[in-house]
């Protein structure tokens, strides 16, 4: 028996840093699992797998970094890892990265985050910058080529919002938000963003859990998220946007994830409560300013990193006795907080909705109607408007005398990412009378924007207004479909210009590359293919078929676009003779690779026991077409 001396107190709370990190890890893993399930369900197992691989890479690199570091420092590696918590950094890093981040970039980022973000400062507890934010910022700024094109999910709400200057006037809001299935959908996480910023509900539940467990304190997330909400609301009101804009502002991008998992990082935030409140208000204001003003898609990371630099100063400011100096400290918070909110709002006044929303909001009192009715016209749109943002292209498609026909395409406003960028494309045939320099007709070939909203600009009446218009004339924006109207107008403008100059343009047709094999006996139930007999000559039978595609476009039947094709089958051999696409409902620029001649040719001569190949980057469309072919083959077999 021995009696030991230890200075008092000799009593300890059960909560330990290790337990805090365990709770945090649990929450991060929950968000990660959600992400895996979401991506697998929405985009296919390979996307889910990608999230898993990213996680394995990041956590592996983090632990390896720790191990090497503690080996060099001649410390016990296991104890070192258990008191360094780098896996948390790695998990956060994965969750704030985009799914199309290259694997090597993830590895580099993790190593930078753990080594330069943490270990060089002397390890856990000593670092100045939030290590995960540092790592992510470095991939974002220095490795912009590090995204792989195969994993496309569509523009995240942040990139879309950022390209319109984070300002969406009320009249355009419904159109804008419909791309993501509405605010409710965003709240439940049914949209693509960074890997972790999907389900707002789940993130908030995690936050509540961590606060309840006293793992994080409530002031940081509440003041951070609350301040952003208030600022977004006020800025929105200044520009005629409502509360739904402020909600969108919160739901899009990393604010909630950052608010729960990153601004609450104790190591890099002040240690006093008034200090934290001031820090949170500052970080919130910076987030808003960066979003509104800087050329970055999401402000959260940089706001955190900038505020990290101020942490030591804030700590110093609040050194003292929290009771005796309470009034002084409160005043610091009030003055500092008010100043940063004021600066944000001043910046906010200057926020001009950028292209493609350069024009003032359509002056219609009613919000955008949900059901397409007759288009109603709003503001005038001069045909010589600068449409650069629409990246319009036209190719000569035919000519009869003075009448030239151009096949044009232009950026629309939808969410779908395609090879060229982050916007959907609309395509139209525009005919121009060279002698007068006026458009004679406009026909929409592919409509890539949001059905039910944007398509009001494609109605007959809306298109008719272009007829007889030249560059000096004006048309009118269709209320609630202003983006689409501009997209179409840009094509008309281009066609007129090209006709005047006699240009032809060049077409860059997407070439199909083939990937995995797809057996024709595959179960295509999900595509809901249907075929009806359309004609018959002896053994050769033609079917008009339709099947669900993959576009985001909502139509009457449900939430998917439909593709339609004519499939001709030789009943005597049970093989396909030809496939022709009648109606392509999927995403132009992506899915249409599966509709190219080469892609369709592969079905010829195939029966139900044969295989075709998936077209890379257009796998859903390939399956959609294959499902129709299969149905036609089966139907033909049943025929007399």
């Amino acid at each position, binding site marked *: *028996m*021995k*009696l*030991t*001396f*230890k*200075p*008092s*107190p*000799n*009593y*300890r*709370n059960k*909560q*330990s*840093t*290790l*337990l*805090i990190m365990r709770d945090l890890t649990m929450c991060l893993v929950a968000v990660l699992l959600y992400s895996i399930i979401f991506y697998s369900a929405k985009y296919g197992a390979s996307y889910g797998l990608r999230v898993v691989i990213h996680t394995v890479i990041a956590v592996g690199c983090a632990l390896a970094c720790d191990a090497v570091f503690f080996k060099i420092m001649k410390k016990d590696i296991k104890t070192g890892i*258990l*008191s360094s918590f780098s896996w948390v950094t790695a998990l956060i890093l994965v969750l704030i990265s985009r799914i199309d981040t290259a694997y090597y970039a993830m590895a580099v980022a993790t190593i930078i985050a753990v080594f330069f973000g943490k270990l060089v400062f002397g*390890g*856990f*507890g*000593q670092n100045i910058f939030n290590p995960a934010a540092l790592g992510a910022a470095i991939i974002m700024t220095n490795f912009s080529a590090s995204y792989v094109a195969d994993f496309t999910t569509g523009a995240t709400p942040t990139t879309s919002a950022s390209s319109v200057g984070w300002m969406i006037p009320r009249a355009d809001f419904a159109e804008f938000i419909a791309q993501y299935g509405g605010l409710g959908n965003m709240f439940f996480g049914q949209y693509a963003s960074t890997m972790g910023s999907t389900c707002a509900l789940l993130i908030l539940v995690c936050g509540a859990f961590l606060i309840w467990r*006293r793992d994080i*304190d409530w*002031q940081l997330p509440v003041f951070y998220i609350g301040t952003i909400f208030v600022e977004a609301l006020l800025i929105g009101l200044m520009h005629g946007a409502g509360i739904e804009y402020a909600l969108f502002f919160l739901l899009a991008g990393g604010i909630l994830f950052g608010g729960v998992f990153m601004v609450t990082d*104790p*190591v890099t*935030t*002040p*240690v*006093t*409560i*008034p200090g*934290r*409140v001031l820090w949170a208000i500052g970080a919130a204001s910076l987030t808003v300013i960066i979003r509104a003003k800087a050329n970055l898609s999401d402000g959260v990371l940089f706001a955190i990193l900038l505020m990290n630099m101020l942490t030591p100063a804030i*700590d*110093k400011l*609040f*050194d*003292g*006795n*929290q*009771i*005796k100096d*309470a009034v002084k*400290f*409160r005043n610091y*918070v009030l003055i500092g907080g008010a100043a940063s909110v004021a600066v944000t709002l001043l910046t906010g006044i200057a926020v001009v909705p950028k292209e493609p929303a350069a024009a003032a909001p359509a002056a219609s009192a009613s919000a955008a109607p949900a059901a397409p009715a007759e288009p109603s016209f709003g503001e005038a749109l001069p045909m010589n408007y600068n449409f650069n943002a629409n990246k319009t292209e036209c190719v000569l498609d035919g000519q009869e005398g003075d009448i030239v026909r151009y096949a044009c395409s232009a950026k629309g406003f939808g969410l779908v990412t395609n090879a060229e960028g982050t916007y959907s494309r609309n395509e139209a045939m525009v005919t121009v009378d060279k002698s007068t320099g006026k458009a004679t007709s406009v026909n929409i070939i592919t409509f890539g924007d949001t059905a039910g909203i944007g398509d009001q600009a494609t109605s007959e009446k809306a298109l008719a207004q272009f007829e007889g218009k030249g560059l000096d004339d004006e048309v009118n924006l269709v209320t609630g479909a202003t983006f689409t109207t501009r997209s179409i107008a840009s094509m008309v403008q281009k066609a007129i210009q090209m006709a005047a100059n006699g240009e032809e343009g060049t077409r860059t047709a997407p070439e199909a590359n083939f990937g995995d094999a797809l057996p024709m006996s595959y179960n295509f139930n999900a595509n809901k293919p249907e075929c009806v007999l359309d004609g018959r000559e002896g053994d050769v039978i033609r079917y008009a078929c339709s099947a669900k595609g993959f576009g985001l476009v909502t139509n009457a039947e449900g939430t998917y676009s439909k593709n339609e094709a004519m499939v001709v089958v030789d009943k005597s051999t049970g093989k396909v003779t030809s496939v022709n696409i009648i109606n392509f409902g999927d995403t132009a620029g992506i899915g249409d690779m599966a509709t190219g001649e080469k892609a369709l040719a592969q079905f010829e001569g195939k029966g139900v026991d044969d295989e075709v190949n998936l077209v890379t980057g257009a796998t859903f469309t390939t399956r959609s077409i294959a499902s129709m072919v299969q149905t036609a083959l089966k139907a033909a077999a049943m025929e007399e």
Partner: protein
Amino acid sequence: MSILTGPMRFHLDGHKELTAHKEVLFMPEPDDLYIPLVNGRAACTPLVKEGDQVKAGQKIGEPTDAFWYVPIFSPVSGTVVGIEKRMTAALKPGEHLHIRNDHKGTTVQPFAPMDYEKASREELLEFVKQAGMAGLGGAGFPTFNKYTKPEGIDLLIVNAVECEPYLTADYANSMANAKLMRTGVLALLKLSNAPKGLVAVKEDKKDLIALLHEQFDGTKIEVAEVPDIYPAGWERTLIFMLTGKRYDRLPAEAGCILNNVSTAIALGNALENGMPITKKYLTVSGDGVKDPKNVVVSVGTPASAVIAQCGGYEGEDCLLIAGGPMMGRTIPNDQFVIGIANNGLTVLQHREPFSVKCLRCGKCTETCPSGLVPVRINMAEQIKDIDSLKKLSIMDCIECGLCTYICPSKLDVTEGIRRAKRYMALVK
């Protein structure tokens, strides 16, 4: 502005069930007693010399200072062996009067009982002084000093909160001596000139609350229930909870006088029975002792004898703490004796916690009842940043221990603050 401050307190697992409802052991008097010649904080000159016969209750030490006036009385009858140097609970050698018990129990009454209702306030005050009443909550502050000039006092607070984990001695004492408590509390109220008094008790001690109502309903004393948090029993926290007032130096600035309930009971005993403080209710508890319980021991009994009465130590490496684990001191030697201000021995098995670097979580800041920023004090102390240490008002730290308790990284935060205090005392 409670949004900008933390709770400044915390609910601790009190482990009070270990001892609260066990039978109290009246410990047999030991053969040898060593009465510290510093009584509480009052240094005394002995009134007896080697070879003298003493009786239980006899005054044997006279304080040398008129302010720190707490005379010493013998707990037992027997022979004075001499004055010996022994290690005290403060881990310093100190003089003790060694008395060999003759186990005859011959008793004298050192002073006559008094009817506090009839006596004048001045007579009562003098009685309190002569009877050697002192703060038994741990401080040992002479009681009469608090009441010499009770100007502007509008509230007497009797502290029965006992917020230290493990300790239940006050509780057991109150439960057993309700009548004496009533007398003592009402006498203190008279001394304080306050229009009313409160007995503060933790809300979870239902039986004590019922007993208090029984005793005090119909008097000017009310029962105030406080939440089960630490340090609810600390003066500043208690006064803030009961009155909403904070003060700078003394409770009197908030119009309050505070005394511990054990002090009130001791006063009741002196008034009714004419007996001084020679015995103490003491909690012996913790996972390092075989049979935790409350004991009643004579002042001057060595801690080793008390532990032996409770089944001895459990485990191979223990921390012996005079008092509770939060504010009590660990003493690596069980030869020190129980003094009037002791109210517990906590014995805990010693396990080193797995500690990591400070994660700057700020929990110490949020819970510090004095409103300090312990983490900043520790960081400033490590780099000897005098300017920061000056700003951080380290002298306000009461060493309550909450910052170490709460620290998830298992750092010795409180000790860092003590180091800072010592360092600042040096550079001054």
